[in-house]
């Protein structure tokens, strides 16, 4: 019954603003590395933020990647039209086929967001350590 939730595209329907922006840039460009996206002004964020976001899109099954020197070159797995069709199909399936109670849907949204929390918590801790070390010096 939960198979629809476990598909990558189910979580893809809740993309963050930076994820959406990068995905659009890759649809336009075809493929790119983090450095190329930043150089062309597709994202106003730090290198590591863009790298983490692209990695997340890859894990969600929306991007393919191949090694390119010491970095990865990312390309969209679906065209924009295919992606929209798949999203719509997923939404209709959920609307028609889901007998899940409301509380489940709410939990599911939290679950999706929760998947990103440990990574962000680690980043906060790392930054805090760096700050403490800088202040000691």
């Amino acid at each position, binding site marked *: 019954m939960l198979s629809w939730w476990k598909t990558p595209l189910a979580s893809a329907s*809740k993309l963050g603003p930076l994820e959406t922006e990068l995905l659009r840039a890759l649809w336009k460009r075809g493929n790119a590395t983090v450095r190329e996206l930043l150089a062309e002004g597709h994202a106003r964020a730090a290198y590591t933020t863009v790298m983490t976001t692209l990695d997340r899109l890859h894990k969600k099954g929306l991007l393919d990647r191949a090694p390119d020197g010491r970095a990865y070159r990312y390309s969209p797995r679906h065209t924009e039209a295919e992606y929209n069709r798949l999203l719509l199909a997923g939404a209709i399936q959920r609307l028609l086929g889901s007998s899940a109670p409301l509380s489940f849907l709410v*939990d599911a949204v939290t679950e999706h967001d929760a998947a990103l929390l440990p990574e962000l918590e680690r980043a*906060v801790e790392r930054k805090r350590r760096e700050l403490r070390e800088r202040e000691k010096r």
Partner: protein
Amino acid sequence: MYFIRGGVIAMSVFVLVYVALSLMVSVGWRALRRDRWHVSSTTTYCFRILPLAAALVVVAVFTVPSFLRFEPRWDDEPIGSAVLALASAGAVILIFGTINALLGWMRTSRCVSSWTADSRTLNLETAVPAFQTPESAPLLAVAGLCRPKLLVSACARQLLDPGELDVAIRHELAHARRRDNLKKLLLRACAFPYLGALDRAWLEAAEIDADDEAVRDERSALDLASALLKASRLTPRVPGPELTMDLVSGAPGAVTARVERLLAWRPRARPKPRFRIGVPAALVAAVTAGLAYMWVLTRVHQFTEFLVR
């Protein structure tokens, strides 16, 4: 009959301007988003409120005066069915907006009253009164339209360390200063199809602006990021009622985007003073409108005559 005719004409002009501008704003907003322009919360809000404000100004400044000035009182002119339909649509829009806003306000008041019924006042030395709410309430929130109050749940004081609590409170106080709850009420009053995306964009921009106001240095940026993550960890997350500003309100993805933004926080250079063209432009517009006022009233009357027939 004279005043009924005036009311029908005013309502018809209102609905024409309101609907036309709402559609234009909707299309314009999509274009802005497509071109990925960065739009501040104030601009987003002005853009969203423009149809209602402009429709009210056109009715109050031009339509009503032109009717009173040029419409003969003894004229028993019949009212056409098209104008009646437009006026009815206008009445429906206004009534729906008022009920929508009232319902939101009543639901919020009920919810906040239940939280603050047995609450104790917190001595936080903040600009607005602060109350400790039960654990069932959102972690931190600002409620109240004209007299905002800060609600800090019992959970917040256990979950957040002093630095995190301090910056989270500053975030909520920024919402109170910006009267974001009152703005939300006005958004409910002028709900319009296809403008939901603009409402959400404003909410996300308002959260980012409150983050920026709350953060003073890199340490407080990390404290706020940590507070947001802890608030997101609360399961089940307790959403606040519509007319409150919660620490983690907005789409789920918006919280992670805010945290990423806080992680990349850098001290911002003071913006250079820019030549403000708003005031001179408004003065020029007011003088021009004053000079051409009678001409505009005549044209508006001709238009309403055409509308009535």
